[in-house]
């Protein structure tokens, strides 16, 4: 039996990416991204914290540092999906910790029009909602959105187009009724 033991700690074999540094640098943006998805800030911060804990210490070492941010965004997106899934199944909390950002009770959001848009956005299918947020909040390219969501670039493109059209219909603007 031949056993070669070269790999442990050998430098250069795999580029290491400091997940902690990425989270630190992008925490605000990630929390905001999560907020759009889950609605309230406390949950959004939890999601980011959890994504950080899970991806830290090379839990999933990235071979390509250029893709690190996309990976971290995906982790946050997945965290949001879990939260939303849990909400569907779990018993609602008796007292909401914080009203969702799109709710009428939310003091954080002043504009009625803003609220209307967010409520409409929330009503879209999950993929459309995610794609629209990644495009119109983070201003990501089709390719970046595809990577973050784990879908193809052309799918990302068409999802955005469909989402935008659906949003327009709900808001009573443009397109078919």
């Amino acid at each position, binding site marked *: 039996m031949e*056993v070669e033991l070269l790999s*442990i700690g050998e430098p250069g074999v795999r580029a290491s990416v400091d997940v902690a540094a990425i989270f630190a640098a992008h*925490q605000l943006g990630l929390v*905001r991204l999560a907020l*759009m998805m889950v609605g309230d800030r406390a949950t959004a911060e939890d999601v980011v914290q959890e994504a950080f804990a899970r991806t830290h210490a090379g839990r999933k*070492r990235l071979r390509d540092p250029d893709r690190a941010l996309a990976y971290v965004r995906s982790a946050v997106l997945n965290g949001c999906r879990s939260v939303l899934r849990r909400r569907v199944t779990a018993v609602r909390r008796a007292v909401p910790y914080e009203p969702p950002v799109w709710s009428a009770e939310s003091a954080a*959001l*002043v504009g009625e029009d803003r609220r209307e848009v967010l409520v409409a956005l929330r009503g879209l299918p999950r993929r459309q909602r995610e794609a629209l947020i990644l495009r119109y909040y983070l201003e990501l390219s089709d390719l970046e959105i595809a990577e973050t969501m784990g879908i193809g670039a052309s799918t990302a493109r068409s999802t955005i187009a469909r989402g*935008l059209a659906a949003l327009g219909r709900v808001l009573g603007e443009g397109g078919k009724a």
Partner: protein
Amino acid sequence: MNDQVEVRLRAALTEAGDTVQPVTLRALAPPQGSRVQVHTRLLVVAMIVLPLAVGAATLLRPTDRDSQLVAMGVMGMSPSRVLGPEDPEIAVYICEAQSPFRSCSGSHGATPQQIAAIEQALRAMPQVESITFRDQQTTYELFVEHQANSTLAQIVEPTDMPESFRLKMKEDTDWTPTLEAAVALPGVSNVINEKCISEYLAGDSDNSKCSVGVIFR
């Protein structure tokens, strides 16, 4: 037009985002638990799940920050398993993502197509009587069960475990062709003759002949 929708959407998202300001942001807590790198975890798992006779001294390099864990892995290598007469004798391990084995390098784990092809190839072998598949969860449960060292059991996760096909072999056949053909299949990390290991533990055999293809990258 959609232009107007885009404008409204951008404005709404920006305003929603602005409700979170940096000064009020809750600080990220330092991550809890294991700081052990996945590669080392998988290496340790590989050493225990696959009972390899790896020279412990070779592994223990004091400069390695994970060397203590590796040492635990080496200590955990002496498996307590005794093969029963009904147990499958051969284990064909499947490449998992980030597998420490060279035969798996360059891949992100065996694809479903590869796994299906492996099964098909194994079933076609004349020396093989029957085949079972052992998934990650089952492997994990066995691992934890055999692993008295709770620290290690806490560190590893089901997804660290390799999947494997278990082959029940026909008696009085030469298993060597099976072992060699199996290890050459794409998506196979290595092949272990567990009967041989069992005999080795009983002092009847030379462990160096028990495994095929074990080369760490």
